[in-house]
């Protein structure tokens, strides 16, 4: 069963979900499963939003945006029977970091192997590494409670209590003091500083710190980035065990399985159906108006678009309370990442560790040292893309050969920093696209000689493209930064974090709501469950 293009079959529904990204589809599937008549309206010709697979070059199916499925909630796989609808996720086995001096570090699922690798840089760090992992897992265990529930009630947590990060703090109250202190540090420190507390080798710390900056306009030394490190450990204790992985057929397979499950439960999914505006009658949501003028009625509309698009786009500023508008204006989107997708005719070979072995089947981090990372950030601070960027690379074809012709490969390069607000103005990005792509490939060529000559096809995505093609305001990959002041009961704004919005019968379920971005499905799931309990639909 597939989504249909064009016009919906009926003129009214119980619920209309705006946006067929993975969160919109998750929400729709849960609502349909509960018996609601649901319509999903997607602007593009494919479902998935940023979790999409597209055959950009004959025979090559790219995970155009999101390339690793991190933290996708296992209960969604169970409850919506996604395996039956074709979803299979292959875990990532390693993180590989080649260094410019020819050395390299791979961290594996196998602890002994990791230990030997780290010991080559620092025997002490090799000992500490499992301790660190255990502690982080303990902290992540609490964080997991947070992502599987709607955010805590803000009235019982003054915003000044942020250091306790709401419910994590309250859960931690039952645990030992050391862990509580550590948690506070995690919430306030930078990724680099936090890692400095544990390790001595920068070869180890730098790639670890990098996971703290993905999708933010912050550097590894910016306060608050330590918290994001936790996400990495959450995947490992998920009951899914190493939930980080490749979806077979590309990340779009997540969305396709969700759409198939939604449709099997009776939902209608329509593509090429951009929504122009919310239909409001006496301040209350009564449906939507498509760009082609068609009006469709619904008791409730759930928007999976980012907060800017939902409120400034669909609702319109004149229908919003000025106080809410000014809060919303403070919500930081400021995209900072880009992507380069390659089709290549052979496996890229890293001089630092040749061969096509297991070490390049996981993610590959170009993050030589803290200074490099900070310089990359400096470029961005002053309104330019990084000349020597941080990169997170995967070659999914080494594990999932279904996405390319036999013997050919896909190289997916996530790049930071590529600030949306370049000095010349974001609308000038198209002129810089090639230069940006070249900076990425030139940097990588130094680690992988011959890469450039193996390219069969290339796609360069700037934040401008992410906004224009994927509807991500300012190209922010998470519908708003995952920084502390934009999480939990503050996401997207104080008072409106539980999927309701200030507009009657308009709900939100995208990454701009708790617990945030990434291919998690949690916002969609929690929004649906909260909505079903509310009596609105």
């Amino acid at each position, binding site marked *: 069963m597939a989504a249909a293009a064009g016009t919906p079959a009926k003129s009214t529904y119980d619920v209309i979900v705006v946006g067929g990204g993975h969160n919109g589809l998750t929400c729709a599937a849960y609502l349909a499963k509960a018996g609601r008549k649901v319509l999903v309206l997607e602007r593009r010709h494919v479902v998935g939003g940023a979790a999409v697979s597209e055959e950009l070059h004959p025979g090559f199916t790219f995970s155009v945006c999101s390339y690793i499925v991190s933290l996708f909630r*296992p*209960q969604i*796989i*169970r409850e919506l029977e996604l*395996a039956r609808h074709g979803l*299979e*996720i*292959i*875990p990532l*086995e390693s993180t590989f970091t080649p260094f410019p001096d020819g050395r390299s570090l791979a961290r594996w*699922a*196998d602890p*002994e*192997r990791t230990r030997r690798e780290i010991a080559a840089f620092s025997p002490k760090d090799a000992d500490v590494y499992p301790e660190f992992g255990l502690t982080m*897992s303990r902290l992540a*265990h609490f964080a*997991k409670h947070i992502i599987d529930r709607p955010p805590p009630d803000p009235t019982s947590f003054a915003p000044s209590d942020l250091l306790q990060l709401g419910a994590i703090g309250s859960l931690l109250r039952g*645990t030992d003091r050391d862990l509580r202190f550590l948690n506070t540090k995690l919430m306030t420190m930078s990724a680099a500083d936090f890692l400095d507390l544990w390790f001595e080798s920068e070869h180890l710390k730098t790639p670890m710190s990098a996971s703290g900056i993905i999708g933010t306009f912050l550097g590894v030394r910016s306060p608050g980035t330590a918290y994001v490190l936790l996400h990495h450990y959450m995947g490992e*204790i998920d*009951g*899914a*065990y*190493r939930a980080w992985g490749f979806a*077979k057929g590309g990340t779009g397979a997540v969305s396709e399985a969700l759409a198939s499950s939604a449709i099997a439960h009776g939902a209608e999914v329509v593509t090429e159906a951009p929504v122009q505006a919310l239909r409001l009658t006496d301040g209350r949501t009564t449906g939507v108006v498509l760009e082609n003028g068609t009006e469709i009625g619904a008791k409730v509309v759930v928007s999976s678009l980012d907060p800017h698009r939902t409120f400034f786009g669909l609702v319109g500023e004149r229908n919003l309370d000025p106080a809410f508008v000014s809060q919303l204006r403070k919500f930081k989107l400021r995209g900072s990442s880009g992507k380069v997708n390659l089709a290549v005719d052979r496996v890229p070979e890293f001089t630092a560790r040749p061969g096509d072995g*297991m070490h390049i*089947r996981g993610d590959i981090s170009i993050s030589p040292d803290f200074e490099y990372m900070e310089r990359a950030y400096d470029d961005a601070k002053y309104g330019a893309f990084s000349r020597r960027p941080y990169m997170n690379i995967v070659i999914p*074809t*080494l*594990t*999932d*050969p*279904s996405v390319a012709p*036999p*013997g050919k490969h896909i190289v997916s390069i996530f790049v930071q920093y590529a600030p949306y607000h370049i000095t010349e103005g974001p609308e000038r990005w198209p002129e810089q696209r090639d230069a940006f792509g070249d900076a990425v490939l030139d940097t990588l060529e130094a680690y992988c000689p011959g890469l450039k000559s193996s390219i069969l096809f290339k796609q360069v995505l700037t934040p401008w493209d992410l906004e224009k093609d994927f509807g991500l305001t300012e190209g922010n990959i998470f519908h708003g930064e995952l920084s502390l002041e934009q999480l939990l009961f503050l996401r997207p704004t104080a008072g409106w974090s539980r999927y309701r919005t200030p507009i009657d019968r308009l709900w939100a379920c995208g990454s701009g709501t708790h617990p945030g971005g990434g291919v998690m499905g949690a916002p969609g799931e929690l929004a649906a469950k909260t909505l079903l309990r509310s009596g609105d639909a």
Partner: protein
Amino acid sequence: MSIATPFHPRTSVLCTSLFWKEWAGHHAVRSYDTHHEPEYFAIRHAAALIDVSPLFKYDVSGPDAAAFLSRVMVRDIRKLKIGRVTYLCWCDDHGKVLDDGTVSRFAEQDFRVTSAEPALAWLSRQAGRFRVTIEDVSERIATLSLQGPRSRDILRDATDADLDALKFFGVTAATLRGIDVRLSRTGYTGDLGYEIWIHRDHALPVWDALMEVGEAHRITPVGLDAMDVSRIEAGFILNGVDYFSAHRCVVESRKSTPYEIGLGWTVNLEREPFVGQEALRLEKARGSRWAKVGLVIDWDEHEALFAKVGLPPQVPSAAWRTAVPVYDTGGRQVGQATSGAWSPTLKQNLALATVEAAYAAPGTALRMEVTVEFQRHRVTAVVTETPFFNPERKRA
């Protein structure tokens, strides 16, 4: 002491984990790497090359071969078409299962039986006046199982077989780089897959050719641990784990009939006499005492038990096969879970269990014993139809 299979010169070099087990008197790789998970995913996403040579194999031929096999097997083998394989079991005179395996029909009078346990003596004993020869080819025929979504592409590149014509449970002769092999579209993983039957003298060139051609399809040598997870997902039972051959049981209560281990569907009762027929007829009429079922263990309860002691939920990293008690909701023991695994694909904790027949209906909620921090608990486990995981590609 165990002996090597014909592929040992290759597998022993690749098995860097030194993680071996004994299988039917042979050295068998459990996992090539310390972690079997990438191997599991090779089965489900690319292609897995598994040495299954320790299987017992018997070639049965002669004018009465079909009649003979019909007499000893629970299925009417005379109906098996040339080029087809069938899965079945065989019983003693009391209708108690001795083993399960396959029968392939290569030609009008040529068959091959595979089994988990030696069967030569038993087969020969039944031969009586049937005009058949039974030859134990277990040592002579090396076997590779090539499983996974890319297995067909690899064989298409490596052999001259008409793979589109080779349907699920079909078997055909083929040549692979000039070597005569047989291909059957069978396996123990519940995925698209084939088994390749080779004279042992040609074992290594076949292995090498498959690895070479398979490279572009990300072929991976895979050990038994990964296959064990996939067979649980597929709901396949294992002799010696999920039931016990009547030959080996000291007490009657350990023995099972086909109906009790989920193989009732392989029994063709109404035909000329076959071994165990009377007993099976009676059992069919009377109803069985036991049933084999799939169980899905309630994840929320499982997680809550761990949360109570402050731990994140844990699941065994490999498939398990030490039986644990299963209870009804009132607390009476109604059977045992005999093996299980965490399914990385379904994100579900699965088990196969033997339960009293009254509890076998899908949807029935039972309680299964789990141990958390050295304490025994019970969690809900719901009877679920198998296969738990059944991808379309398996038959496509």
